């Protein structure tokens, strides 16, 4: 495999060399100057090919089956829905929104907090510079990369078959997702800090754990809190959708009302969610600026 790769890269290098003639020009005083090979064209070509392939696969196929006219005439449907939502806003529905919305918020809070708490110790164990020669960081990073491939909803879906419906699976899914993301972000940070202070404190007779607490934590804690807040925002938006797999929260009533085409109610749900998200976003921005 390796020889194949080097053969290909050699071919490539030869091509670039032979191409050099066309890219060289002579300046007034006789020196040759060669423009470096521009990958831009190749990259553009590759992307274009990929684009054509996918376009064919999805869009052309779609137009074949349903017809371009049909599509164009259906686009307004989207905006009609929005229009109905705006026009038929049904404020009296708000009472039914409060409880699920609160549930969604709670799921995000607990999910984020618990995910964060578990992530810090694991992040420490996953940092090569703290763990020295141990292979544990490699193992942890490998499992983390697999866990990270699934968004919250996939976990919620799987859990819904094991634990049944309700907010519990929503919380569990959020915890796992949050854990996977924060651990990665934290070990990336820990691996880039200055170890000097850590070594110095160890030399005073502290254990590794004490040295970590004294020398490393002050360097990372600000960013840790910032990351938690950032994840809280993400989880809030994800929690709103959990309802679609019956994992609790506002997604359930959203799904129901959409199915019933009661756009007025949907509008109220969206607005309530929007309000919460905006408040959380602004507050989070303010806090995160104070933390760094």
């Amino acid at each position: 495999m390796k020889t194949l790769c080097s053969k290909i890269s050699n071919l490539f290098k030869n091509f670039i060399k032979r191409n050099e003639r066309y890219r060289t020009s002579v300046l007034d005083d006789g020196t040759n100057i060669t423009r470096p090979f521009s990958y831009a064209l190749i990259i553009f070509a590759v992307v274009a090919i990929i684009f054509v392939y996918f376009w064919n696969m999805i869009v052309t196929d779609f137009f074949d089956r349903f017809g371009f006219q049909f599509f164009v005439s259906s686009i307004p449907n989207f905006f009609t829905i929005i229009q109905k939502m705006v026009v038929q806003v049904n404020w009296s529905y708000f009472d039914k929104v409060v409880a699920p919305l609160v549930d969604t918020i709670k799921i995000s809070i607990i999910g984020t907090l618990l995910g964060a708490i578990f992530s810090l110790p694991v992040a420490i164990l996953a940092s090569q510079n703290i763990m020295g020669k141990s292979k544990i960081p490699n193992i942890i990073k490998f499992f983390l990369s697999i866990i990270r491939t699934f968004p919250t909803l996939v976990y919620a879906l799987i859990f819904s078959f094991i634990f049944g419906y309700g907010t519990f699976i929503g919380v569990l899914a959020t915890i796992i997702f949050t854990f996977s993301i924060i651990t990665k972000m934290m070990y990336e940070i820990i691996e880039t800090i200055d170890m000097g202070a850590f070594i110095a404190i160890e030399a005073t007779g502290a254990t590794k754990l004490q040295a970590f607490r004294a020398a490393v934590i002050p360097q990372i804690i600000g960013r840790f809190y910032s990351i938690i807040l950032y994840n809280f925002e993400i989880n809030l938006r994800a929690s709103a959708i959990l309802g679609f797999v019956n994992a609790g929260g506002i997604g359930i009533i959203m799904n129901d009302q959409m199915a019933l085409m009661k756009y007025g109610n949907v509008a109220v749900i969206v607005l309530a969610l929007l309000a919460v998200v905006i408040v959380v976003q602004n507050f989070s921005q303010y806090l995160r600026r104070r933390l760094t």
Partner: protein
Amino acid sequence: MQTILQKYDERPRNGLRNTITISVILFLTVWSADIINYPGLFENGLNIARNIFKALYNPTWHLIFSVEVDSIPFLMFETLGIAFLGTLLGAILSIPFAFLTAKNIVGRFNIIGNTIITTIRSFPFFLIALMFVRVSGPGPMTGVLTIGVLSIGMISKLYIEVIEDIDPGILLALDALGATKYQKIRYGIIPQLTASIISVVIYRFEINVKNATVLGIVGAGGIGVTLLTAMNAGRWRDAAAALWGIIIVVLIVDYFSTMLRKKLVNG
């Protein structure tokens, strides 16, 4: 000794602020804790869990290795396609949004654009998918449209940052040596933008791949459909195959995305 005691008295008292912060967090935690109401295992829950776990070791192999329309590879390609076209669509749709919200173009009115973009970002994305289903039916096309709209949030923010940061100095310098408008854009503006734009677009693509896998649950095509149907029918091995498909593709995309973005940062 006196000076030392004096200095001791000068110490910063963070006690109050720390207590308040901890109290707030504790309060929120306790308040939210009732959400964890363990409902016990579903009737067959433990069995199902065991089956799912076993299935991960023994997924439906022929689904993973064939290339027919229903197979995992095909569906993962479809998912990639949804993410790819969707990201592209988002990149295009974001342009007008960005121009209408950049401070150096619309000044104080950027609040309108900002609100619209935030609204789009906070719109639960399944809702958008459901709305598009009324336009293009269940299927990957809906996925493309949904992802397109979803990406507007992040990409327009990026465009705005880039637009607001354009260094006018370079444009002035180019003006001074008599460049045409086209030349100014080509040599003055574009080089400043390309690296960061491409980097963010790649990042967004990575996120969109994950989102696309999930859209199938609402019927917008991709591997999510298989996952959902298989699980609903109790075909755990098929579901496991779908999960493996997701793992492999996301890992590959992740790897390339990180590598490409690192290269972009380093020039």
